[in-house]
């Protein structure tokens, strides 16, 4: 002989549970996929940030005016006159960089 309250509880719990189907659940995410998805998410985020930085750089950095010549090196002193002694550099005198070539 079954208790009507027990039957009622059993039926209510069964009906409540049966009301939840796979369609109600979030997309499945098996445990072994979780770290990989995290890596993929991080990679995508990094890619988006890098793209945004490149775009910002392109927009903000002004184009060089091709009409203006870049400034050349400043006036340099002719150092040939300082090495005439052959002794070496003298204090207070500019040194010429050593350059190979003819």
């Amino acid at each position, binding site marked *: 002989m079954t*208790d009507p*309250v*027990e039957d*009622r*509880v*059993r*039926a*209510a*719990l*069964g*009906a*409540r*549970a*049966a*009301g*939840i*189907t*796979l369609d*109600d*659940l*979030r997309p*499945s*995410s*098996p*445990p*072994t*996929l*979780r*770290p*990989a*998805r995290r*890596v*993929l998410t991080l*990679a995508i985020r990094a890619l988006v940030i890098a793209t945004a930085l490149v775009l910002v750089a392109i927009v903000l950095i002004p184009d060089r005016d091709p009409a203006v010549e870049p400034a050349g090196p400043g006036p340099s002193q002719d150092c040939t006159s300082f090495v005439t002694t052959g002794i070496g550099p003298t204090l207070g005198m500019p040194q010429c960089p050593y350059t190979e070539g003819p």
Partner: protein
Amino acid sequence: MILAIRPSWLQLLLRSVTSGAHASRGGSSREAPPAINELYHVRRLGLVRLAVLMVDDLPTAEDIVQDVFAALYRRHGADLRGVTDPHAYLTTAVMNACRSALRRRRTARAYLPPKPLPALAAEDEALRTEADPEVLAALTRLTVRQRQVVVLRYYAELSEEEIADALRVSRGTVKSTASRALTILRDALSEARP
């Protein structure tokens, strides 16, 4: 068009990233999925249903089940070596997690001013109506332990011994808890329909 000319190395890279830790252990993609993933697909819905009957809230129930599987994977790996009965393990773990969630919820309610419950969606309301709202309301009068016993006994159809194992209590405790719970439910239902 871009996808069509995607180089094969990029496909390989994407496959290696999305296939997860299992594939990186040297298994080919044609191997059977790891045991924990099979278990996840087989048991997920049932465990979510079980958790819903405990916490009465689908998002929380889904979180609980997901966390339980994540903990199982962290502790025992993908092949579940060392787990003698994964099904019993999952039932116990979900029940423990539900108990913790309900305790946290009750503690929060004790410290926060009562808020009106959010209106249920029409579908959820319909499901509850089919599921005998008087019984569901009566279930809220039970303690967490009583509710666990009732759910495992009348929904999961576990024996007293299995419930005792799942909840890590004695068989006598299960029997007395179930008896007390039924008395409370009987009183609540008789109040609802005098």
